[in-house]
């Protein structure tokens, strides 16, 4: 589509600088021995040491990881079953209704999900804390798993299943030895996205968490409201490295599966 002029290159360069500057700004000052984000005094690791010395913070990181892993696992299971259920539905109208309902939580703003789940948990009598956070994370991750698995199921040819049947496979065999291996890339992509959604979620957790339980995002929010603390900068340095690692894993998975999955997320 034609060649690029210098003006276009400059524009792109500016966009890239603006996108990355804040992130590197944060990491740069995480090494500042002066406790501010304005004048760099001298290099230090002390803020990183502070992160690892803070047992409460470490506990919160553990909580976050446990919630993410559990919610990703459970939502993947429900999501795969859901995708199978949708594919097996012969009634077109019902199928479209299910698909629309599936997408409601994906387009709903966080505030709505958070507030409505808060009402739900209070009405049902779930104590706010670990359980409510875990259940919410499972709930908002299910639809994305369905969306990742569904295309794989739809592209699978029926003759594969017929062949397995003709060769004497039971219904269970067909599922575990034909269908599941075929849709595995979709399952992995769904699990992975569920994991990162859970790790990143702030707003929903903020609504449904009680006093005793906190995840990293909520903790960063309360720290940031109190003002600048270079511990957050050190945390962001660590999170940046983990994030880059996750992105690389995700794209490696995608490349192997050759599924064009759009990897944008918040």
């Amino acid at each position, binding site marked *: *589509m034609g060649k690029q002029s210098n003006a276009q290159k400059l524009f792109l360069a500016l966009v890239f600088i603006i996108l990355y500057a804040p992130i590197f700004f944060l990491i740069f*000052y995480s090494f500042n021995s002066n406790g501010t*984000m304005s004048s760099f005094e001298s290099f230090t690791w002390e803020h990183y040491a502070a992160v690892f010395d803070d047992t409460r913070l470490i506990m919160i990181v553990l909580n976050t990881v446990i919630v993410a892993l559990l919610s990703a696992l459970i939502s993947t299971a429900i999501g795969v079953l859901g995708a199978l259920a949708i594919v*097996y539905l012969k009634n077109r109208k019902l199928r479209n209704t299910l698909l629309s309902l599936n997408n409601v939580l994906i*387009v709903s703003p*966080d*505030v709505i999900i958070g507030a409505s789940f808060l009402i739900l948990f209070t009405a049902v009598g779930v104590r706010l804390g670990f359980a409510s956070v875990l259940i919410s994370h499972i709930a908002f991750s*299910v639809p994305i798993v369905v969306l990742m698995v569904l295309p794989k199921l739809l592209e699978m040819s029926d003759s594969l299943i017929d062949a397995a049947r003709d060769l004497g496979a039971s*219904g269970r065999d067909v599922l575990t030895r034909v269908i599941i291996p075929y849709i595995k890339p979709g399952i992995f992509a769904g699990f992975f996205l569920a994991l990162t959604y859970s790790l990143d979620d702030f707003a929903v957790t903020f609504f449904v968490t009680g006093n005793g339980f906190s995840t990293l995002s909520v903790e960063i929010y309360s720290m940031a409201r109190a003002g600048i603390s270079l511990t957050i900068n050190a945390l962001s340095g660590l999170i940046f490295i983990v994030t880059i690692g996750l992105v690389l894993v995700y794209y490696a998975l995608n490349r192997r599966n050759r599924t064009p999955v759009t990897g944008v997320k918040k």
Partner: protein
Amino acid sequence: MQNKSTKALYLIPYGAWILLFVVAPIALVVYYSLFDIHGDFTFSNYKAFFSSVYLELTLSSFWYAFLITLFSLLISYPTAYFLTKTKHKQLWLLLIIIPSWINLLLKTYAFIGIFGQYGPINAFFAAIGIGSTQLLFTDFSFIFVSVYIFIPFMILPIFNAIDRLNPALIDASRDLGASPWTTFRRVILPLTMNGVKSGIQVTFIPALSLFMITRLIAGNKVITLGTAIEQQFLVTQNWGMGSTIAVFLILFMFIIMLFTGQKEKGGASVGKTK
């Protein structure tokens, strides 16, 4: 294919999920919107929503969301367009997307430092003789940070739309004597409108409901529908009013989706729209 009972079995957990976490929450929000703070049945919340206070709030929330979407689009469209012309476009696209994976809170927090009284922007202003200015807690900083957050989400669907465009169409338009501007306006833009619509959808709805950025960056100066809901639920504890605002936000969401919806699935908006 498997027999009917196993198929029904698949439907149970997923159906339960839909009933419990999609249908029930929306029903509960509508139900709660009909009760006042003392738990009495009333339509007063709806009456309050149509009072000048809340109408003004809704209007200003829409205005901010409009500005955020507009600026995001003005930056994202050319970026996406130029990106499709680069040599290693998938790699560059990945580089655009990576910031969107960084925790939202951290990116917002960075701007507290950047826009701060002693931050680099103010240092720059001082160096060129403007002198330090209050940047944090202004409309400008709120819109800037929001646009910053949304750009990658806007670029992606537009990039996909432009990338799928058949270059022969552009050549044809040029051969037929169209100027570059006419080609853009009459060929490229209409054919990539679906990407633009997805981009608007993933920006406008969240922009209406932002509450974290308003609190951290705009102080309490900017109040969006999201901030108002958070305020009613977690501060004032007036769940009825909070639910009423939520009902309207859900309505707005459906209207926006109706306007930006597409007949054929572009597959461009898989990213979660938070």
